[in-house]
């Protein structure tokens, strides 16, 4: 079943035509990785899907419904979550407070003005569960700005998971992570239940090939090809434009 469908998406910044008629379909439960050279338009594509940037033209469907005209916070309500390429967190708050805010985004009582935050047990529980799952419980009272880079990346992902999404867009989740953290991260990502769909931008090929079951190559703003990891690996042209030969040596 197609969960996310992008149809003929175009995006220009003034005279720069960045995305040129992108078409992508993502099925439910898929681990869909988007790769492509720097500046191909991957982040821009995410921004357009999520509504952070307005599209120039084209359509975006989520579960069959068009969503390209609704504000981005409503897309979260409809089941989308995302992380940012550059850490985008509440630096002055603790890890726990960050997570709570995130969880609350989908709760009905988020507009409640009178009942103190501490009194919501479900909130506390969910927060606790998430932190446990992602092995961050120990760090829960630390201010985010004092976390190491890798930890902050992790928190990015926790936040996007907290909104209880059906589909998550992850923008270079492992960039800046050490191999240790990266492999832990891959392990944790693999634990994400199957019903949650993941769309991931990644440059680290190990990560790409250990997670992906579908890969889209974005080049100069067009989706050159969408195929299984094996096909991508075997494609000569892609080898050239993206891997520049040799980089795949240890696969």
């Amino acid at each position, binding site marked *: 079943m197609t969960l996310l469908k992008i149809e003929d998406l175009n995006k220009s910044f003034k005279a720069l035509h960045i995305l040129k008629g992108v078409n992508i379909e993502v099925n439910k439960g898929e681990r869909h990785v988007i790769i492509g050279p720097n500046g191909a338009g991957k982040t821009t594509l995410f921004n357009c899907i999520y509504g952070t940037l307005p599209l120039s033209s084209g359509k975006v469907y989520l579960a069959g419904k068009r969503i390209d005209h609704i504000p981005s916070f409503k897309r979260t309500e409809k089941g989308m979550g995302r992380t940012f390429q550059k850490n985008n967190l509440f630096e002055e708050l603790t890890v726990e407070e960050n997570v709570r805010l995130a969880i609350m985004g989908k709760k009905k009582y988020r507009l409640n003005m009178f009942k103190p935050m501490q009194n919501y047990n479900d909130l506390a529980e969910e927060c606790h569960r998430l932190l446990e799952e992602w092995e961050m419980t120990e760090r829960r009272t630390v201010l985010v700005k004092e976390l190491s*880079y890798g930890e902050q990346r992790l928190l990015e992902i926790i936040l996007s998971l907290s909104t209880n999404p059906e589909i998550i867009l992850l923008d270079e989740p492992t960039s800046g992570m050490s191999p240790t953290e990266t492999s832990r991260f891959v392990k944790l990502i693999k634990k994400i239940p199957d019903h949650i769909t993941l769309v991931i931008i990644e440059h680290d090929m190990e990560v790409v090939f250990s997670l992906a079951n579908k890969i889209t190559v974005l080049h100069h703003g067009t989706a050159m090809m969408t195929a299984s990891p094996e096909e991508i690996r075997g494609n000569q042209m892609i080898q050239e434009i993206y891997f520049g030969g040799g980089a795949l040596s240890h696969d």
Partner: protein
Amino acid sequence: MIELKEVHSYYGHSHILHGVNLQVKKGQCVALLGRNGAGKTTTIHSIAGLVVPKEGTIQFKDKELVGRTPNHISKAGVGLVPQGRRVFPSLTVKENLLIAERKSISSEKQWTIEEVYQLFPILKEREENMGNELSGGQQQMLAIGRALLLNPDFLLMDEPSEGLAPVIIEQIKNIILDVKKTGLSMLIVEQNIDLACCVADEVIILNKGEVVWQGLPAELLHNDELLKVHLGV
């Protein structure tokens, strides 16, 4: 060229570096590896003067760097590619480069903006765009270009390959090797062990603010135990 002795650095009250010792000789490239939070960036910052070590000495070309301000250190010939790019969003791409351009004090190789543009043609194309209108990888290129234009004698690179596509990493690798040939000394922090081992003459592994291993790249690549324990590979 540069020598750190028993450097102890703090953020506020938290003690991050517990007596780091390391040395980079002239024309040498040293790679600094370690897990997230090991203190790699802190080491870089201690050298660049962005963090002032409370104890220890840092000798650079016979000058003591501890206690000097970042601008002095930079003027003394230290260039920095910071972690997270840190390009200036309110400057255009060109201005981001212009601001760094200066004459080298000793090395004969002089980088110019044109050369940087040749290295990364996309920067030329985006010349008039603001710093934050670049893609992540393009910003990384800009940060590298900016550091080269300082024409330093000693270059600090904090995860230069972060967020770059494999082709570009390959390119960066070549750049580093080229630059090395001009006699520039470097300290590189990397997560990409392949890249690090390819360019470095020596590798240092940091853990919890202490140097836990030091040796040749080849040794490291063949020491599975080490790779597993400290780098998780």
